[in-house]
């Protein structure tokens, strides 16, 4: 088990370094705001005093390393500054809205994983036959589909034409369905393509032949053995595409008027509310990193050999 813990420690250290890098980028990028960042953030109607106060508040008169240190210090105390737009604390706004985004991201991932793996397995077990071509088509269409357009199409179809589901907002359970499906389709396509190719690989392996030679039913061959082995690369893809899914969440939230942090991000960018942008992007990056640590942990559950690579 020592191997496992050193492996995990390594991953955790890498994750912390990445998050530090993300923070640095977020702090340093302010320097590139055209003109006087404080003026930009304060808005056109701000008085010179207001601008000066903001500059001081945000520590913009300090050097980048000092600002970076401040940022980390504040972060450590759970403080990410105040919104330039509303004057509220960035952290409290984010915590109020984050659950909605999490809900959407989890459901979207679930749709993507379940549908993607199912399609991929069907394609692999029907290689070069009609169903395989069908899945390939669904796959390439899925990765070509703009989420925002898909969302609009689904709204037109289900809400306007069929009058079935509420169009927007996060009030009821059924209002979750369209956004989750919209968000999940891209992941589904990526996961289906990956599952197909790894499953085809696995089904050609010697051990699969051994299992068949035992006279075991095909269902067991495919699901218990081949799919379990295919799971490590599939997990990697699930982890990596989670980033794309978060990007998609920003768009999906906008289409469905979903009250999560994605839509807040868009509004904040439009309002040039840089502190809020900083906070939200940081949270998105952290979510991505956490999810990838989780998939790393799952490797060890799926594949007994991973432990050795400590």
């Amino acid at each position, binding site marked *: 088990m020592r191997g496992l813990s050193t492996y995990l420690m390594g991953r955790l250290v890498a994750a912390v370094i990445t998050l530090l890098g993300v923070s640095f980028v977020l702090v340093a990028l302010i320097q590139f705001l055209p003109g006087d960042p404080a003026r930009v953030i304060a808005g056109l109607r701000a008085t010179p005093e207001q601008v000066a106060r903001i500059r001081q508040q945000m520590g913009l008169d300090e050097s980048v390393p000092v600002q970076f240190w401040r940022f980390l210090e504040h972060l450590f105390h759970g403080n990410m500054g105040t919104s330039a737009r509303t004057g509220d604390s960035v952290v409290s706004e984010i915590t109020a809205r984050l659950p909605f985004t999490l809900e959407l991201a989890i459901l979207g991932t679930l749709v993507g994983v379940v549908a993607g793996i199912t399609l991929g397995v069907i394609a692999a077990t029907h290689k070069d036959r009609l169903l395989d071509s069908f899945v390939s088509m669904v796959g390439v269409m899925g990765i070509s589909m703009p989420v925002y357009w898909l969302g609009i199409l689904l709204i037109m179809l289900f809400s306007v034409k069929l009058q079935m589901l509420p169009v927007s907002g996060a009030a009821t359970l059924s209002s979750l369905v369209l956004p989750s499906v919209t968000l999940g389709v891209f992941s589904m396509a990526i996961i289906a393509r990956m599952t197909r190719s790894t499953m085809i690989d696995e089904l050609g392996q*010697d051990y699969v*032949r*051994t299992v068949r030679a*035992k*006279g*075991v*039913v095909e269902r067991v061959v495919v699901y218990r053995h081949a799919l379990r082995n295919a799971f490590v690369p599939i997990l990697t893809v699930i982890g990596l595409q989670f980033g794309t899914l978060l990007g998609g969440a920003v768009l999906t939230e906008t289409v469905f008027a979903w009250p999560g942090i994605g839509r807040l991000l868009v509004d904040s960018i439009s309002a040039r509310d840089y502190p809020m942008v900083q906070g939200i992007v940081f949270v998105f990056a952290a979510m991505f990193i956490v999810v990838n640590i989780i998939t790393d942990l799952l490797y060890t559950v799926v594949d*007994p*050999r991973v432990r050795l690579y400590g």
Partner: protein
Amino acid sequence: MTEPVMSIQDLSVRFRTHDSVVRAVDKVSFDVYPGETLGVVGESGSGKSVTMLSILRLLQESKRLETSGHAWFDGQDLLALRQKDLRAIRGRDIALVPQDPMTCLDPVFKVGNQLSEAIKAHFPGSRGSLRRKGVELLDLVGLPQPDRQYDQYPHEYSGGMRQRAMIAMGVANDPKLIIADEPTTALDVTIQAQIMDVLREAQRESNASLVLITHDLGLIAEMADRVVVMYAGHVVETGDVATIFAHPRHPYTLGLMGSLPQTGGDEKWLRPIPGSPPNLAAVPSGCPFHPRCLLSKGREICRTDLPALDTVEGSHRSACHFKEELADEAAQLLAQAEQIT
């Protein structure tokens, strides 16, 4: 003679690739009798594994694979059987000990579970009884701590241990026929001997027939009752071990024995066959062995006509137009001498 347990007739296997056809097995016929050990020899790529895998229909199915012929077992043609009936035979009546033990175990399951799975597929039982049976089998094949090793993963096993586990899986359901594909090539010499003992013991215990595929003529001499010699997807000679070793009637067999070092023997016996096995996507015309054959001496018929597998004497058969020329000892020695010059 008694009825064979398995009878292969005119078995052909082809793989179509995008620009060629690989004739891996071409009109192969042979029988396996109850309780006997049949050795199958031939250079790498001569189609030994493909023959055996195609009998159990374990080659990956695709549009590119064409199999024809018959594999009679228990009055049924395995090649025409429904999947469900075939499954009932695989692992119960016919067991396969595959070629490479390093890749033949599922890396993410405990060896014991994989062993129990072989039993459960045909004789469902409680978890406990399956485990007991599995541990017993691991003990039978000589794993030192079967109870502990039952719960280990393949990567925790050595090559020899894996091969033993594969044999345990093979004999788990007392099959009538065990097909062992080079069960010892991946292992070092001392372990090879132990593994063969395990296999022989297991075979004796269940009185099964054994098809033993190998490159190793020494092993054939030691274990087999009869031999099938394969070259380029064809059976070129078959007969009793004693006959084949004493009076080979095919220049390829002779060549194989030429590459077998004789203890205290002549230097000249150490010659391997000149040239290399043919590309099965372009098998030579006529007798597939002719480009390498020292007996042919460029005679026309070798290049034009495929020799039939004809009887030499009793059950001894050879596919060579000029097998008579190998009839006496003198001719054999002559052929050997020519190989050297």
